[in-house]
C-alpha cells in the first residue's frame, strides 16, 4: 500500500514536471529568436512593442500579425532601417485577454518600448488603449476594429472599424444582389460582433435588405447553435451573415449542414482562419463570402511580392489579412517616422508619439491592404474587397480551401 502510494505520487509529479519542462524549452527558443532580431547596436535601435494572442482561441490572428510585423521589420532593416535607425520587435502574448494585454503592455514599457503596434484583437486593445493614452505612447493597432480602440488621439489603426465593416457588408450584399432576405447570428457578448451587427442592420434597412432573423449567442453558450440555425431556416433567409470569429463560424457551418440548412454565407475579417478550423470538413466552407481588404491570391505586384516573401519566410504558410495588417502597420510607422524626420533613436516615447500622431494624418501608405490615409481620429480610409472561399480537390481526394477575389 505504502509503495503503491509512493509510485503514484512519483508518477503524478513526473506528469506535472514534463509539460513544465516542455514549456520552459519552448520559451527559451522564443527569446533566442527575439534577441536575434535585435542584434543591431542598441544606440541606433528603436524597440517596437507588439501585443496579440500568440496562443489561445484567437492565436491565428496574433501569429499572423506577429509574422507580418517581423517580415516588414526584417525588410526595412536589411534596406538600412528608417533614417538609419534599426527597428526591433518585442512581441508579447495576451491570449485575447484584457488583463494579460495590460500586463504585456507594462512588460514592454520595462523593455524600453518606444511605440506599440497592437493589440491584435478588439477587447484587449481597448484596455491597452486606456494605458497608452495615459503614457502618451504611440499606438497603431493592425486589426483592433472596435470603435473605441482608437478613441484617444495617440491611437491609429490599419483595418476597418466595426461599423465600417457592417455598413460595407450590407452595401455589398444589396448592390451586388447577393440576397434580399438576410439572417444574422452574432455574439452578443463580444464588442466586435455586436458593433458590426448593429451597423449592418441599420444599413440593411437603408439598402432595402430585409433582415428576417437576428439570433444571438454569448461566450458562455457558444457550442450549441441548433436553435439559432433552425430559426434561420424558418425565416426563409437566402443569406446568413456571420459577423463573428471563425471558431463559432466553423461550428455553425458544421451544425447547419447537419440540419440541412442551405443558404449563402457572408462574413467579415473574423472569418479569416475558417478554412483551417474546419479541418476535414473544409468542403463546408465552399462559397462562403467575406469582406476583407486583403487576398493572398490577388494578382497585383504588391500582393504577389508580399505573399512570396511571407511564404518563403514562414514555411510556405499563406498570409491572411492579419499578416497583411501587421506588415502594413510597420510600413505606416516607417512612413510616419520619415515624415516626422525622426533621426535620433534615443527620443522619448512621449516625444515620438507627439511627432508621429501629426505625421500619421499627412502620409499615404501604399500597403498590401490598399492605399491608406488616416484622419486625425485614427481611422483609415481604404476600399474593402470581397472574397469567396473556393474548394479544390487534391489528387488523393482530400480538399483544400483558398480565397479568391470576387
Amino acid at each position, binding site marked *: 500500500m505504502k509503495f503503491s*502510494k509512493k509510485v503514484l505520487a512519483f508518477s503524478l509529479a513526473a506528469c506535472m514536471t514534463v509539460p513544465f519542462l516542455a514549456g520552459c524549452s519552448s520559451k527559451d527558443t522564443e527569446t533566442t529568436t527575439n534577441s536575434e532580431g535585435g542584434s543591431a547596436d542598441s544606440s541606433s535601435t528603436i524597440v517596437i512593442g507588439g501585443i496579440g494572442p500568440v496562443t489561445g482561441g484567437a492565436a491565428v490572428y496574433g501569429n499572423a500579425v506577429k509574422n507580418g510585423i517581423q517580415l516588414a521589420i526584417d525588410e526595412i532593416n536589411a534596406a538600412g532601417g528608417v533614417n538609419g535607425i534599426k527597428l526591433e520587435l518585442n512581441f508579447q502574448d495576451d*491570449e485575447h485577454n484584457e488583463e494579460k494585454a495590460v500586463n504585456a503592455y507594462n512588460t514592454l514599457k520595462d523593455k524600453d518600448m518606444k511605440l506599440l503596434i497592437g493589440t491584435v484583437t478588439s477587447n484587449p486593445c481597448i484596455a491597452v488603449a486606456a494605458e497608452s493614452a495615459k503614457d502618451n505612447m504611440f499606438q497603431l493597432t493592425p486589426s483592433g476594429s472596435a470603435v473605441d480602440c482608437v478613441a484617444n488621439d495617440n491611437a491609429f489603426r490599419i483595418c476597418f472599424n466595426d461599423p465600417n465593416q457592417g455598413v460595407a457588408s450590407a452595401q455589398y450584399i444589396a448592390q451586388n444582389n447577393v440576397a434580399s432576405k438576410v439572417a444574422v447570428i452574432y455574439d452578443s457578448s463580444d464588442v466586435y460582433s455586436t458593433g458590426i451587427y448593429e451597423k449592418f442592420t441599420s444599413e440593411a434597412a437603408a439598402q432595402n435588405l430585409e433582415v428576417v432573423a437576428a439570433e444571438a449567442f454569448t461566450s458562455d453558450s457558444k457550442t450549441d447553435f*441548433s436553435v*439559432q440555425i*433552425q430559426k434561420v431556416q424558418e425565416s426563409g433567409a437566402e443569406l446568413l451573415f456571420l459577423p463573428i470569429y471563425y471558431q463559432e463560424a466553423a*461550428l455553425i457551418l*458544421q*451544425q447547419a449542414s447537419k440540419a440541412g440548412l442551405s443558404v449563402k454565407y457572408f462574413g467579415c475579417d473574423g472569418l479569416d482562419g475558417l478554412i483551417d478550423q474546419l479541418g476535414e470538413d473544409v468542403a463546408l466552407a465552399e462559397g462562403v463570402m467575406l469582406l476583407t481588404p486583403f487576398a493572398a491570391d490577388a494578382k497585383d505586384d504588391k500582393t504577389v511580392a508580399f505573399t512570396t516573401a511571407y511564404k518563403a519566410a514562414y514555411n510556405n504558410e499563406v498570409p491572411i489579412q492579419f499578416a497583411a495588417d501587421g506588415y502594413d502597420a510597420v510600413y505606416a510607422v516607417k512612413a510616419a517616422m520619415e515624415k516626422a524626420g525622426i533621426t535620433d533613436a534615443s527620443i522619448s516615447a512621449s516625444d515620438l508619439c507627439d511627432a508621429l500622431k501629426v505625421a500619421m494624418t499627412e502620409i499615404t501608405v501604399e500597403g498590401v491592404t490598399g492605399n491608406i490615409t488616416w484622419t486625425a481620429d485614427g481611422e483609415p480610409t481604404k476600399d474593402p474587397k470581397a472574397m469567396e472561399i473556393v474548394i479544390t480537390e487534391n489528387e488523393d481526394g482530400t480538399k483544400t480551401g483558398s480565397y479568391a477575389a470576387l
Partner: protein
Amino acid sequence: MMSFISYLVNGISLGSIYALIALGYTMVYGIAKMLNFAHGDIIMVGGFTIFTAMSTAWCPVWLSVLIGIAVCTVLGVVVEKVAYKPLRTAPPLAVLITAIGVSYLLQNVALLIFGSASQSFTSIVKNIAPVTLGGVTISMETIISIVISLIIMVCLTIFINKTKAGKAMLAVSEDKGAAQLMGINVNATISLTFAIGSALAGVASALLCSSYPQISPYTGSMPGIKAFVAAVFGGIGSIPGAMIGGILLGVIENLSKAYISSQLSDAIVFLVLIVVLIVKPTGIMGKKINEKV
C-alpha cells in the same frame, strides 16, 4: 409544431449529455459528500484522449472511444486516491478547494501539451447521414446522444439497485460508519464510484465533442458547470434526479433560446434553478434530510 419538436429533440440531446455528466457529480456527492469540480476537466481529458487516438491512423473509432473511457476511469480513480482520499476526514471546504485545484491542474497541463487553440474534432459518427422524420431533420449525433444516454441510465439504475456493489454504494451513501460495520469496504466502494462517474464522463466527452466538433482545454468547464446545476436542480445525491435535472436543463435552455431570447437563455436557466431551489430547496428528487441532534 414541427419546429417545436425539433427544438425539443435537440434540447433532449443536449440535456442527455448534461445528465451523463451530472450523474458523475451526483454519485460522488452522494457517496463522498464532496463536490468534484474537476469532473468537467475529466471530460476534457477524455476528449483529448479520443482526439489523439483518432488522429493516429491505425486506431479505429470504437477503440479510440474505449481508450478515452479507460483513461477517464483511471484518471478519476487516481485523482481520488492522490488528492481526495488523504482529506477524507478534513473539513468539506478543504476538499472543495482541492477539487478546484485539481481542475486547474488538469486544465493547465492540457494547455501546456495541446496549446489553447481549439482544434477540430472528427465526429465519431461522421459518415452517417442525418435522418429526416416527418419534416424534422435530426443529426446522427443527436440520436446517438439520446440513445446512449438512455441505455447508460437504465444500466446504471439496474446496477445500483440489483447488484451487490451497487447496494454497497447505496449503503455507504446513507451511512458510511454503519456500512463499514456491516462489512462493506468503504474505500473500495468510493473508488468504484469515482471509476463509474469518470467512465460516464468519458462517454460524455465522446458525445459532447462529436455534437460540437471542437476541442480545447476549456471544453469541459462550461458543460461541467451546467451539469453541476443540473445535479442541484434534480436534487444532488439523487441518481434519477441527475437524469431528470440534466434533460430538463437542456430542454429549458433550448426552448428559452427559441421562444424567449437567444441572448437570455443562460439567465433563464439559472432563474429556473433559483425558483426551484426556493420552492424545493433539496431539488426536484432530493430527499429532505433531518438534521440529527
